């Protein structure tokens, strides 16, 4: 049964072409959006103004606290029930969901990173005539980036792993593509191949994810070690 089946090539091709591209597309957009929103919110959280702090804290705790699948159901089924125009296709709903989760993670990491920059840096930048925005964009955040790098790589791994949830609402990604292919392989000819594909196809999907995420995990660990050393 471990001979190379006739369906191996077309299935692998479909997984890469339709599955992996979908996964990576969602992952890249969600990573960029999460970083932009997360870094902004995290920086704003360092301002000593109770109402804004409380609001951002609530945002972080809610989207970090909910299981992502529940957030996905809220965005995909709940939002349009509240307000009709908020009806999204699975791809958009999935990207929004991962962005809510990811930005919450990054906001928390950014807050810590910004607060780790010594007060003197703030004061020196202020003395040079920078305003609050200029001070953070040009002086504080570039220094905080070093500390932010490991959590950003971890976030990328987390986002890639969690893209599989989007298949649940019918979005095109690797796991959804795999499920389709299992159906094709298991269908009776001529529609399918009349074989059993579950074991080999899902094992293959695990392998693809492992090949992408394992190097990233190593990278994250290396960045972490380098940070501790300096």
């Amino acid at each position: 049964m471990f001979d190379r089946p006739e369906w191996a090539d077309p299935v692998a091709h479909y997984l890469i072409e339709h599955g992996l591209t979908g996964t990576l597309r969602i992952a890249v957009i969600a990573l960029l959006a999460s970083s932009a929103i997360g870094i902004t919110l995290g920086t704003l959280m360092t301002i000593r103004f109770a109402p804004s702090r409380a609001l951002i804290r609530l945002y972080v705790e809610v989207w970090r606290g909910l299981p992502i699948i529940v957030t996905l159901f809220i965005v995909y089924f709940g939002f349009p029930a509240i307000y009709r125009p908020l009806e999204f296709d699975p791809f958009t709903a999935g990207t929004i969901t991962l962005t809510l989760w990811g930005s919450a993670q990054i906001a928390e990491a950014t807050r810590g990173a910004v607060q780790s920059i010594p007060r003197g840096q703030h004061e020196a930048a202020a003395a040079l005539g920078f305003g609050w925005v200029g001070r953070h964009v040009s002086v504080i955040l570039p220094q905080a980036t070093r500390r932010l790098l490991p959590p950003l790589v971890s976030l990328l791994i987390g986002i890639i792993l969690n893209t599989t949830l989007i298949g649940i609402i019918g979005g095109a990604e690797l796991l959804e593509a795999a499920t389709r292919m299992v159906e094709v392989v298991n269908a009776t000819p001529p529609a399918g191949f009349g074989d059993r594909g579950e074991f080999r196809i899902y094992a293959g999907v695990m392998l693809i994810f492992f090949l992408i995420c394992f190097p990233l995990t190593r990278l994250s660990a290396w960045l972490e070690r380098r940070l501790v050393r300096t």
Partner: protein
Amino acid sequence: MTIAVTYDLGAFLSENWEELLRGLGRTLKVSAIAIVGSVVIGVVLGAARAHRIPVVRQLAAVYVEVIRNTPILVQIFFLYFGLGQFEATRMEVFTVAWLSVMLWGGAFNTENFRAGFEAVPRNLREAGLALGFSRLATFLNVTLPIGGRIALPSSINTYIAVLKNTALLYVISYPELTTTAFQIQALTLETLEAWTVLGVVYLTLVWTLSALIRGLESHLALPGEA
């Protein structure tokens, strides 16, 4: 296009509370089994990794990396559908439910406990051995109580994640809380009420456990280090 949105949480709860409570019960049951199992896996494999026990240590490393670097959803699919392909490895939904989240939690706990055991000062272990304790007795009496305490906050984080991951059992239709709420709203169309209940219940559980960590962190800090 005006849609009459009726939102009646009270009516939703009074009609479905029994079913929702059964779902919550299953969520907690699966979580409890998985957490207990993940402690056993974590302590044994964490010790094997920290004390460099040959073969077990390498196998543990492979297990940890495979679980951490593949989506848990694919792991659930593999256990349920992939292994379900063969008569010999076919499992019931409930078995896959607790097994999948337990294996996931066990991998993360292996790392938590490994870090905890490695943080135990060398001289404490040497003192145990010098007193004539066997290696196992030294581990049980010295490394485990101290390292376990060091690992506690990070392992509670893993238990919170295990609890949240049970929501994914929706994909194999195990009737825990998320599946139950989903099925109710599919029938009654009370979408918003269903998601409100889910959100409130999960956040209450997760926030309570997080508060517990913060409490424990100060309470269990090793004397002389805090």
